[in-house]
C-alpha cells in the first residue's frame, strides 16, 4: 500500500501500523501509562557497589527492554560499559531503546552478532553500526523515531522500558541527579528525564557522588531504584565533536547569509520571536548573522529552543534572547550555561516535542533552521540514509521542529558529486508538507503551499527559484545519478512523530 508521501509500504507491516496520513496530528484522546514501582521503605539504601549488582537487583532478564540517553553523544561511556557487563552475564534477546546512538556505540554490533541484542529502536544510526544494519545484520527491523515520537511512544507504552541505565554528571546516594554539576557535565538531561519517569527500574550511574540532597533536581529520588558510582560516565569534549566549529567554507557562509535574509525578510522577525537552529557550520553561522540583525533592528527573541549551542548561550548572555528552553546541549559551553544562567531552562523530551501531550514547545516555535542530506521536488527531506543508501544519520527533532511557522532547510545544491536537491529522496524522514523554504548557495525555493512567503520573499528581492529548477541545476553539475540498488528485505522502519509508518529502509545490495 502507498502512504500519503507516496511510499510503498510492504503488506507485512499493515497489521502493526497505520500508514502515514498527514502532518496535522488532530486532537486525539490518548492514554498515558505509568511504571510499576518497587517501593523503597525508610532505611533502604540505593547505593550499590557495581553495575553487575544493580543489574541483579533490578532483575534484568532475557527478552527485556533497556534504555539509555545520548546526552554525551560521541563522548558516551555508559552504554558500552553496561552492555559489556550484560553480555558477560549471559543475558540474551534484549531490546535496546536508547534516545539515540552515535559512532561510539558501534560496539553494539558484537552484541547483536552474539544474540544479546535482538531489537533496536533509536533516533540515530551511524558508523559501523549503521553500515552493518544496512547490510542486513539484524532479523528484526530497527524502528526509527524522532525525539518527540520517542517521548510519545514511551509515554503511551509503545516502548515499555524495564530497566533504564542513565549516566548522570552528579547524583546523591538517594538518586537526586542533574547534568551540570561535576567533572563530566552534559547540561540538560531532557531525554533521560522521560526514561526516569516511565521505566519500571531506574539505575543511575555517576562519577560524581555528592551529599544528600543534590539540587537542582532534574531526575528525582522518587523515580530512582539504584545508584552506582563508576570511574567515568563520559567525556564532555565528545559532546560537540564535529558540531561546533565556526565555518570558513564560503559555500556554507553564503547559505547562512541567505538563511539570515530569509528570516529577517519574513513576517516572523519581530520583537519576541522564537527560533531553533541545529548543529553544523551553516547553522552556527546563521546564529552569528542573526545576532547582527537583531542588534541593528533592536529585536529580541522571547526564547531559543533545541539542541543548544554555545553561540545561543552567548545571545542569552547579551540579552538578545530572553530564555533558552533546553532539551539537550550540543557542546560543553552550552552544557556549562545550564549551571550559570537561570534563564537557560531544562525541559524534557515530551515538553520539547511530543505530538501527544497537552502542547509541546515546538507548537510555539516561529522559526527553525534544519539541515538535510537530501531534499526532493516534493520538499520531502532525508536526514537518515546516505547517497549509497546506508544508514548514517539521525531523525533527531527534525520531524518535530519542522512544524514551526517558518521551517527553513539549509543545504548545498551538491556535496562533491552527490546532489542534495533530487527528484525523490532515498528515505522520507520529514514530509514536504511541513517544509517551507529550502536555501542553497544559488538561491531559495519556497513550498508552493506558502504563497504568502513566495510573495514576501519575491518582493524582498531574494533569489527565488522553483524547487524543480534547483534540482535541474544540481543535475547539470553532477550528471544523472543511477538509482541505488536495494534488496526487498526491510532493515528499518521510519515512524512519523505520531507513530504512523512513513517509510521503510531496505538492505543495500552487495
Amino acid at each position, binding site marked *: 500500500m502507498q502512504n500519503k508521501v507516496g511510499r510503498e509500504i510492504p503488506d507485512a507491516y499493515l497489521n502493526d501500523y497505520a500508514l502515514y496520513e498527514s502532518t496535522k496530528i488532530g486532537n486525539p484522546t490518548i492514554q498515558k501509562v505509568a511504571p510499576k514501582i518497587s517501593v523503597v521503605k525508610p532505611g533502604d539504601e540505593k547505593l550499590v557497589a557495581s553495575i553487575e549488582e544493580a543489574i541483579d537487583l533490578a532483575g534484568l532478564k532475557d527478552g527485556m527492554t533497556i534504555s539509555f540517553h545520548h546526552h554525551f553523544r560521541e563522548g558516551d561511556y555508559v552504554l558500552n560499559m553496561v552492555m559489556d557487563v550484560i553480555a558477560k552475564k549471559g543475558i540474551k534477546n534484549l531490546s535496546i531503546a536508547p534516545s539515540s546512538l552515535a559512532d561510539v556505540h558501534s560496539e553494539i554490533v558484537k552484541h547483536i552478532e552474539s544474540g544479546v541484542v535482538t531489537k533496536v529502536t533509536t533516533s540515530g544510526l551511524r558508523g559501523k553500526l549503521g553500515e552493518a544494519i544496512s547490510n542486513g545484520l539484524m532479523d528484526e527491523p530497527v524502528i526509527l523515531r524522532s525525539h518527540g515520537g520517542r517521548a510519545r511512544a514511551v509515554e503511551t507504552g509503545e516502548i515499555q522500558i524495564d530497566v533504564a541505565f542513565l549516566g548522570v554528571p552528579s547524583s546523591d546516594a538517594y538518586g537526586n541527579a542533574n547534568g551540570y554539576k561535576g567533572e563530566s557535565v552534559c547540561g540538560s538531561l531532557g531525554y533521560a528525564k522521560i526514561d526516569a519517569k516511565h521505566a519500571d527500574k531506574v539505575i543511575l550511574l555517576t562519577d560524581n557522588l555528592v551529599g544528600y540532597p543534590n539540587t537542582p533536581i532534574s531526575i528525582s529520588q522518587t523515580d530512582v531504584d539504584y545508584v552506582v558510582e563508576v570511574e567515568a560516565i563520559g567525556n564532555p569534549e565528545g559532546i560537540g565533536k564535529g558540531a561546533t566549529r565556526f565555518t570558513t567554507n564560503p559555500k556554507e557562509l553564503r547559505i547562512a547569509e541567505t538563511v539570515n535574509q530569509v528570516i529577517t525578510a519574513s513576517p516572523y522577525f519581530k520583537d519576541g520571536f522564537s527560533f531553533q537552529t541545529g548543529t553544523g557550520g551553516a547553522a552556527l553561522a546563521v546564529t552569528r548573522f542573526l545576532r547582527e540583525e537583531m542588534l541593528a533592528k533592536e529585536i529580541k527573541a522571547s526564547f531559543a529552543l533545541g539542541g543548544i549551542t554555545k553561540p545561543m548561550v552567548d545571545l542569552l548572555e547579551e540579552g538578545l534572547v530572553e530564555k533558552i528552553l533546553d532539551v539537550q546541549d550540543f557542546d560543553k559551553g552550552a552544557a556549562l550555561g545550564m549551571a550559570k544562567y537561570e534563564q537557560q531552562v531544562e525541559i524534557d523530551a515530551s515538553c520539547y516535542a511530543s505530538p501527544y501531550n497537552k502542547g509541546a514547545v515546538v507548537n510555539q516555535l516561529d522559526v527553525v533552521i534544519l539541515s538535510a542530506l537530501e531534499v526532493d521536488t516534493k520538499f520531502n527531506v532525508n536526514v537518515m540514509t546516505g547517497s549509497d543508501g546506508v544508514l548514517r544519520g539521525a531523525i533527531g527533532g527534525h520531524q518535530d521542529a519542522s512544524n514551526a511557522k517558518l521551517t527553513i532547510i539549509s543545504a548545498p545544491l551538491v556535496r*562533491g*558529486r552527490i546532489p542534495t536537491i533530487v527528484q525523490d529522496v532515498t528515505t522520507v524522514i520529514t514530509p514536504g508538507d511541513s517544509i517551507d523554504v529550502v536555501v542553497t548557495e544559488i538561491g531559495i525555493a519556497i513550498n508552493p503551499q506558502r504563497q504568502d512567503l513566495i510573495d514576501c520573499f519575491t518582493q524582498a528581492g531574494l533569489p527565488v527559484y522553483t524547487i524543480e529548477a534547483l534540482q535541474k541545476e544540481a543535475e547539470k553539475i553532477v*550528471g544523472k*545519478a*543511477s538509482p*541505488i540498488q536495494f534488496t526487498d528485505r526491510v532493515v528499518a522502519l521510519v515512524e512519523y512523530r505520531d507513530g504512523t509508518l512513513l517509510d521503510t529502509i531496505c538492505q543495500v545490495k552487495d
Partner: protein
Amino acid sequence: MMEIKQTAMAGTLESSDIQITLTPIAGATEIHLDSSVGKQFGEQIKQVITETLASYKVEHVRVDAVDRGALDCTIQARTQTVIQRGLDQVDQVNWEVL
C-alpha cells in the same frame, strides 16, 4: 593506435578529484574503478574514461582509478593527463583530441 610506453599516474586522492594510473598490458583494456560514488555514478565515470582513451586511440592498458567524487570535467582532464604522460608526450600536447 597509440602505444602507452610506461606506467603513468595523474590526479590526487583529495575529495572531488580522481587518481588514475595507466599500465600497458598485452590484452584488451581493463578499467578498475574504486569510487566513493560508485553506486550512483560508476558507469558514468567508466564511460568518460573509455571515451577519453578512445579519443587518443589508446588500447591495451590497465586503468586503475580511485575516485573521490570528481565531476566529469575533472575525470576527463585527469585521463588526458595520464595518457600524455604514458605516451611520454607531456611536452607535445595532442591538441586535436582536446
